[in-house]
């Protein structure tokens, strides 16, 4: 859209004629500019799957549990022991936007607190990563080009930090994810 627009000889003549009212020696120059805008459909982002760390056994030493955003695999470090082979998943979001445009995926905060049902204890979730359409796990905020189809799936993983002797129970929290046009 940055093409240089040549002068319009028609406009030049018309303008020169008008200028004669002021001075017989007047000259006029005319130029044209494009005016443009892109009307975009609203972005939609729907959470279709929760980020779940499954069942774990706390240890006498601190540890972590991580869910890989790209693969959904679960891993642990430190005093944490993983239980079972199901019940964990990356979070998944279904997005729609104008195809082939740039959007920005971001999370409201990089550290999220999970609270024990019934109270009494918390854990933190951090190191959030996103995978767009099965691609590599990447930090946020990040810009992505929406596929021409106008739909895209984002999976989000992260790392849960488990304290030594973490109180037993079910812990929940909320991740706020935002998708905007760039």
């Amino acid at each position, binding site marked *: 859209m*940055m093409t240089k627009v040549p002068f319009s000889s028609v406009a030049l003549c018309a303008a020169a004629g008008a200028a004669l009212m002021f001075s017989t020696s007047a*000259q*006029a120059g*005319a130029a044209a*500019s494009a005016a*443009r*805008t892109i009307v975009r459909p609203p972005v939609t982002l729907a959470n279709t799957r929760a980020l779940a760390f499954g069942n774990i056994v706390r240890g006498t030493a601190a540890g972590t549990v991580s869910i890989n955003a790209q693969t959904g695999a679960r891993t642990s470090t430190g005093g944490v022991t993983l239980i079972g082979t199901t019940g964990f998943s990356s979070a998944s979001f279904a997005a729609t936007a104008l195809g082939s445009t740039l959007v920005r995926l971001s999370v409201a905060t990089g550290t999220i607190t999970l609270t024990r049902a019934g109270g009494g204890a918390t854990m933190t979730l951090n190191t959030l990563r996103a995978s767009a359409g099965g691609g590599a796990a990447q930090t946020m905020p990040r810009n992505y080009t929406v596929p021409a189809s106008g739909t895209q799936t984002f999976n989000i993983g992260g790392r849960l930090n488990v304290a030594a002797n973490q109180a037993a129970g079910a812990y929940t929290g909320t991740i706020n994810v935002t998708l905007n046009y760039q």
Partner: protein
Amino acid sequence: MFANAPAFAGVTQGATEVAIVENLTLVRTEQLDFGGIIAGTTAGTVVVSPLGVRTATGGAVLAGGAPQAAAFAGRGRRNQLMTITFGAPSITITRGGGTQTMTVDSFTINNPPSATLAVAGPRYRISATNGFFEFPVGATLRVGANQTPGLYTGTFSMTANYQ
């Protein structure tokens, strides 16, 4: 009287465009771009000021893109008087591949238009020693309720009358 003066190359844009500003002409150096918007269920407006500041009212929501004011440049001689006129008070921009339209109006030059153009009654006076001037132009976009998504383009023209 300036026919033999050398051309004044004063404006570059991006990496690929150079505007050659000859005496007593006008060239467009920046395109008017309202950027990306989302139409609402009610009508709205998007304004790009001559300084490139974008605002929205009504149902229109700003949604990224690279909004910018248009800009035009010319060259006369210092203290020369001139008028600047718009080709039309409003224009229509049309969706690529479609028939949907929007109106762009309220074209606005900054007042004063720039550091090198001074208001002289209804006219402007060129104040730069080298006679070069450039001025930005903003406008208002009228966005309809549920305006069909797509890329809309149109053209408007400006004329500088050197006196």
